[in-house]
């Protein structure tokens, strides 16, 4: 049994496996399938300052080895989270991390400030990369200046671990990562979904109500892996890798490329128990290759 402990800045993780925001609810939806306390972390559904209804149905389309979603950050707002959801998740021993989203800097700041007061939430993931909201969201994440402004503002009010989730829908993701680092981020996570589109040729209509949406699943893995590798070389802060991870080998690949931890997203829909299996598979890999600690493989790619 190898040592699976890793860290994201000052945040200690029992193992590198976390769940990606928007794919695992608040964790409790999966409690019948996975021992949540075994996970390195659970990143809960994107939370905004105010209630959001999200986009109209249809919001999902399956694509080869992937899927598109256009949920649009449906959530009941940070007050509802603090009063009704937080009490139901605060006693889990895993790291419960809140994904904070918004459409204006003041909203991000106000939401982060509320979450900062919650004792059992040791970190936030700042979502500056959601492709499914009209203003804000990805808008902050597609320019270095926008990323820097929002991260700097949130850093002023948030003193725990601040992870910034990056959009792949940019020309040079390393530039955005460096801007987040310069503004005080403790870590960057990547990639959020890739902007995509699907059409029903028979009806000559888009399959999503919003026409375009965010693509995820195994099909995006090579792109995610490439971006994690580039960003890990470009910044000194730890990188969290995600994008199409469905098994332990995928997770190992992201860590070899430089990720200190990983997130599992769409794979939770196909096998709701997959996260537990990925932890076991990482351990088996480390044992098989004689690594004493999972930290030994972070960035260990031989090029």
């Amino acid at each position, binding site marked *: 049994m190898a040592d699976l402990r890793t860290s994201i800045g000052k945040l200690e993780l029992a193992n590198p496996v976390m769940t990606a925001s*928007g*794919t*695992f*609810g608040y964790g409790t*939806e*999966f409690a*019948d*399938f996975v021992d949540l306390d075994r996970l390195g972390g659970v990143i809960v*559904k994107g939370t905004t300052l105010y209630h959001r*209804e*999200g986009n*109209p*149905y*249809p*919001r*999902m*389309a*399956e694509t*080869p*080895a*992937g*899927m598109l*979603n256009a*949920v649009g950050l*449906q959530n009941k707002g940070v007050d509802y989270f603090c009063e009704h959801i937080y009490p139901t998740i605060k006693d889990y021993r895993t790291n419960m991390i809140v994904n904070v989203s918004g459409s204006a800097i003041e909203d991000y700041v106000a939401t982060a400030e509320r979450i900062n007061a919650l004792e059992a939430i040791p970190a936030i993931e700042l979502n500056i990369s959601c492709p499914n909201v009209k203003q804000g969201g990805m808008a902050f994440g597609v320019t270095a200046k926008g990323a820097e402004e929002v991260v700097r503002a949130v850093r002023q009010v948030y003193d725990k671990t601040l992870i910034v989730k990056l959009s792949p829908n940019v020309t040079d993701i390393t530039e955005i990562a460096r801007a987040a680092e310069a503004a005080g981020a403790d870590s960057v996570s990547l990639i959020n979904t890739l902007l995509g589109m699907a059409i029903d040729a028979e009806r000559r209509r888009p399959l999503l109500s919003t026409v375009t949406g965010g693509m995820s*699943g*195994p099909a995006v893995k090579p792109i995610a892996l490439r971006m994690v590798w580039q960003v890990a070389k470009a910044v000194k802060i730890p990188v969290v890798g995600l994008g199409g991870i469905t098994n332990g080998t995928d997770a190992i690949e992201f860590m070899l490329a430089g990720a200190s931890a990983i997130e599992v997203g*769409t794979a*939770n*829909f*196909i*096998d*709701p*128990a997959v996260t537990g299996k990925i932890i076991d598979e990482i351990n088996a890999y480390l044992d098989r290759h004689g690594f004493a600690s999972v930290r030994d493989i972070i960035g260990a790619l031989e090029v």
Partner: protein
Amino acid sequence: MKKYILDLTVREALAVGKQFVLLRLTSENPLPEMLPGQFVEVRVDETPSVLLRRPISIHYYDKDANELGLLVQLIGNGTRWMATLRSGDVLNVVLPLGNGFTLPADKTVRPLLVGGGVGVAPLLYLGMRLKEMGVTPTFLLGSRTENELMQIVEFEKYGPVYITTENGAVGEQGYVTQHSVLAREQFGQVYTCGPKPMMVAVARWAKGVGVPCEVSLENKMACGVGACLCCVEDTKEGNVCVCKEGPVFSIDKLSWQI
């Protein structure tokens, strides 16, 4: 209800007409309790073009035979793969999911179960459960032609069956809402599952005659447990997940224009 991920064994995969397959599934261990109107998510492993599980309603659950029946319409690559299954094959299934139909508290109530197309599937198990509790269900089943009528003999075990076909080949010609039984008899509860235009028409009729009505929705979904928020239906309380808050809804809760 606790949810399970189970490897079930195919006892038999029966072709039903050209467009459907009936999967009779079992397990070495006793299957968990399942309610009428709940559904399962079936993993489709063999086709690279299919990533997500396929939500399939529970056609029947027979505790004594330790058997789960799924009636599957062959629509795309996922469901067509299910039609290739043979006795002894293993199918990975997450179950039971969703809320299920509300069984009547009053046993003197006369329930009408209205199904169209593959939407008839969950009504068989609902009819079985109603019959068990001493309530005789009346089935009203519609389809375009005689070719899409399925399992009629099974339905007849639990109550009278009325049929409409759009071409008039079997039963009365027309839509389910045009069947003469609706004018002839009185019902105290309506349950319906089928194409949305049919359910809307049934809901409108039920509302018009003042009878409570529950509909079972089939929105496209991914996770099946209320996590991804893809399968939402617009309700009077906003967008809610069909997989978790449904698939069965009282028509009073929905924002349908009826």
